[in-house]
């Protein structure tokens, strides 16, 4: 089954480009560490999933590029073509001239309806190029105007036009200390709208990835390209083919479906986080070896302490003991224990089948309303990813976003109370009631996740 990617706005297009680059690089890499037959099977699955093939054997990404101004798309198209290994379809893009001015209302209420037909035509064409459509993957940021506003509108259109398809939105959470002054408004509006039409939101926080770049990747002058490459690596580690849960030699054919089925048991809880370990500069890879127990120990603690990288983990945080009384439960909460609803662990590389996953099946990690068998899923793939001898990724539906979400909603509410910038939104048809609806939706989400 194939996935159609929709890249929205400057961020969405820049990230999307890095994702396809990463997938292609991994696809072509010879460091499979597995049998040739295995590698071949992996490559076929990856190709089918993300690319269509030209007669000459060149790969064409299954993607639609959307932006309201032309500079980024033209850059993205030419960078991809320059790689020599893959490119975008020359016709699969839509742009305008003026941009959205960081205005969610402009993206959603003006550009959306105006360009709906043109954009959906492109999506339809891409979908028809797939033998079997496995769903949609959108990349966007929340802080700006196009990715956020037009992105929310397009997601709704996707839901209307393809009611039975899976939709996974990859959302970039902006730096806490602004990139855009109205980013909190834009974020609140985006999240509340996506919550209605999307199946799940996979969130990457700029602050977090920035730290990974600084402390793990040792990059001195971090550029957005660096940030996007880390994000692409993490996404690739999830979306590259995996063997299905029951084992078997074929690669799973329904990547989005599997992911969503495993992780989103209830529509009120749709926010997913990604943790990947190990992460290091490419030239250090040869000098480091890891053991699965070591990696998993770190990953488990990263999950329960809500850390996003393997340095600076708080090892004091522990899950509450089973059948806990009120007092010990609150102690655990006081130590910021991150309760999970569901987890999906993806292991790639050497000796994958010998790994013991018992520590992740511990019921105290999870809420009480799912059995650990239903809450925890694992996929093991012997084919190594992106030159890492062993790589473990954890996609989790947990309380991880509570603090950032609460912070964004709080700041947006604070600004809303003073009515600052509201005239910029009402100018394009988003009224105060719309804001209030969005706030209500998100307070509900915060409340639901808090009481896990």
């Amino acid at each position, binding site marked *: 089954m194939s996935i159609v990617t929709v890249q929205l706005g*400057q961020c969405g297009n*820049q990230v999307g480009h890095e994702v396809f680059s990463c997938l292609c690089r991994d696809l072509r890499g010879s460091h499979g560490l597995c049998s040739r037959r295995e590698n071949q099977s992996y490559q076929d699955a990856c190709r089918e999933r993300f690319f269509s093939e030209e007669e000459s054997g060149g790969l064409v990404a299954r993607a639609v590029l959307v932006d309201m*101004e*032309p*500079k*980024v798309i033209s*850059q993205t198209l030419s960078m991809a073509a320059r790689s020599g290994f893959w490119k975008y379809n020359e016709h699969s893009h839509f742009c305008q*001239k*003026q*941009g*959205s*001015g*960081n*205005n969610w209302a402009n993206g959603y209420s003006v550009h959306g309806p105006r360009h709906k037909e043109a954009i959906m035509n492109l999506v339809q064409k891409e979908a028809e190029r797939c033998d079997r459509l496995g769903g949609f993957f959108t990349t966007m940021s929340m802080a700006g*105007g196009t990715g956020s506003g037009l992105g929310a509108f397009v997601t709704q259109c996707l839901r209307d036009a393809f009611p039975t398809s899976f939709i996974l939105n990859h959302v970039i959470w902006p*730096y*806490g*200390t*602004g*990139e*855009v*002054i*109205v980013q909190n408004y834009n974020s609140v509006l985006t999240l509340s709208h996506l919550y209605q039409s999307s199946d799940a939101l996979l969130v990457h926080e700029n602050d977090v990835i*920035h730290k990974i*770049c*600084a402390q793990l990747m040792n*990059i*001195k*002058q*971090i*550029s*957005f*390209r660096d*940030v996007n490459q880390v994000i692409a690596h993490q996404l690739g580690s999830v979306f590259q083919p995996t063997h299905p849960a029951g084992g078997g030699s074929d690669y799973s054919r329904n990547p989005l479906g599997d992911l969503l089925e495993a992780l989103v048991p209830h529509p009120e809880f749709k926010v997913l986080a990604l943790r990947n370990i190990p992460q290091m500069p490419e030239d250090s890879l040869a000098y480091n070896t890891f053991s699965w127990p070591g990696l998993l120990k770190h990953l488990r603690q990263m999950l329960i302490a809500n850390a996003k990288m393997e340095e600076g983990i708080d090892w004091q945080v522990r899950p509450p003991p089973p059948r806990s009384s009120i007092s010990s439960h609150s102690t655990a909460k006081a130590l910021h224990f991150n309760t999970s609803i569901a987890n999906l662990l993806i292991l790639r590389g050497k000796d994958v089948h010998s790994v013991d996953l018992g520590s992740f099946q511990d019921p105290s990690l999870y809420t009480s309303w799912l059995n650990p068998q239903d809450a925890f899923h694992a996929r093991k793939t012997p084919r190594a990813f992106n030159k890492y001898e062993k790589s473990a990724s954890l996609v989790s539906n947990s309380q991880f976003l509570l603090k950032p979400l609460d912070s964004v*909603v*709080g*700041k947006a*509410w*604070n*600004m809303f*109370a*003073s*009515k*600052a*910038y509201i*005239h*910029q939104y009402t100018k394009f048809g988003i009224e105060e009631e719309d804001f*209030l609806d969005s*706030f*209500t939706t998100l*307070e*509900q989400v915060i*409340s639901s996740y808090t*009481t896990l």
Partner: protein
Amino acid sequence: MTQSVVVQVGQCGNQVGCRFWDLALREHAAVNKKGIYDEALSSFFRNIDTRSGGDGPDIYKGKICSLKARALLIDMEEGVVNEILQGPLRDVFDSKQLITDVSGSGNNWAVGHKLYGYQYRENIVEKLRKTAEHCDCLQCFFIIHSMGGGTGSGLGTFVLNLLEDEFPEVYRFVTSVYPSGEDDVITSPYNSVLAMKELNEHADCVLPIENESLFDIVNKINQMMNSGKLGSTVKQNSLVTSSAGNAKTLQEKPFDAMNNIVANLLLNLTSSARFEGSLNMDLNEISMNLVPFPRLHYLVSSLTPLYTLADINVPSRRLDQMFSDAFSRDHQLIQADPKHSLYLACALLVRGNVQVSDLRRNIERLKPSLHFVSWNQEGWKTGLCSVPPVGHSHSLLALANNTCVKPTFIELKDRFMKLYKKKAHLHHYLQIDGMEQSCFSEAVSSLSDLIEEYNELDATKGGPRTDPSRLKIAV
């Protein structure tokens, strides 16, 4: 890609405008080595085939034939415009883009606004329409004028009104040169306050400039150049005050250095719209992020660095110095100190080899010493444009919506009241058709209201922060 049109009105407006076009050509020449007419050029220039006498269709692709500025030059005296048309920029302007008269406005806002406005209205509208027709997607009008005189101030604000009526969807960015206290035009306070009302009501963004600040910057540079310590190693073309031509052949006019600073401001403001970068910042984003309430649209600007030394290796300490300087009092283009007043919003547009980590590091470093309004504690808008200005490896434009503009406005009001109380020179204004005493009282009232809005915001500075309580959800 979008286009912008520059409307330069009056003596000051045209002199600054002239510098702008000069430096814009230089900037594009430095970037565009192959002489191909590209999207970046099209934002300010048309490309026409001169063989068809300038009436032919625009050439959208291919080599540059003849570049014409997307501009309208308006002056009620002929001197300045004639000089431009005889100078090195004569081929950049179309004769059909000029509107001139002979006798000037006599430093009288009413003459500029009511008399000439009425007289030239149709002519101006027609020429604006023509210019707009040549644009594929017109995004912004830049008006350049001074506030203290008659034409720039009166006719300039008349044009502003016109633009709102005829092109309501297009942004209006106004660069206004405010008169200093020692201005030799006695009626400049009247002209300025009357113009302020128009700016309050019809402009999307105003970038106030004060001659004193420009003068101080020019002096600073001259002192540095003459001190002998660093003078010899400064890259001549990197001076924020330098003109495009070779320094030896150029006969610089007295205000050129100061006007070049303003020209650079406009170039930097539009750089991210014209050139690529990892985090674009277009003009509509500037308006969106920096104007929290419609009338509070006055942005204090600063440009750094003022010059580059010839040695190319820039340690990050110097990069950080650039950020620090942007917030210092002597780099602001009006007499104001944003650091000690209240920020409503702040934008940083960086050009050149600067990455997001440099930006973040400096924001974190400078944030504690700045006061932000309670509802916008982390209110930063940032942009990264890959193409640096000529002669620099990187540069920074800081735009602040800050209550430090208040003193400028208060002084203006005070000077106005001094004259108005004695009814000095009023008759020159009231004798113009359409001018009444109420125009004056409304204007000063509008200014007072604006000052009051800034006062209210200042009152919140440093006070205890009680965040409004959040919505409660029934569980």
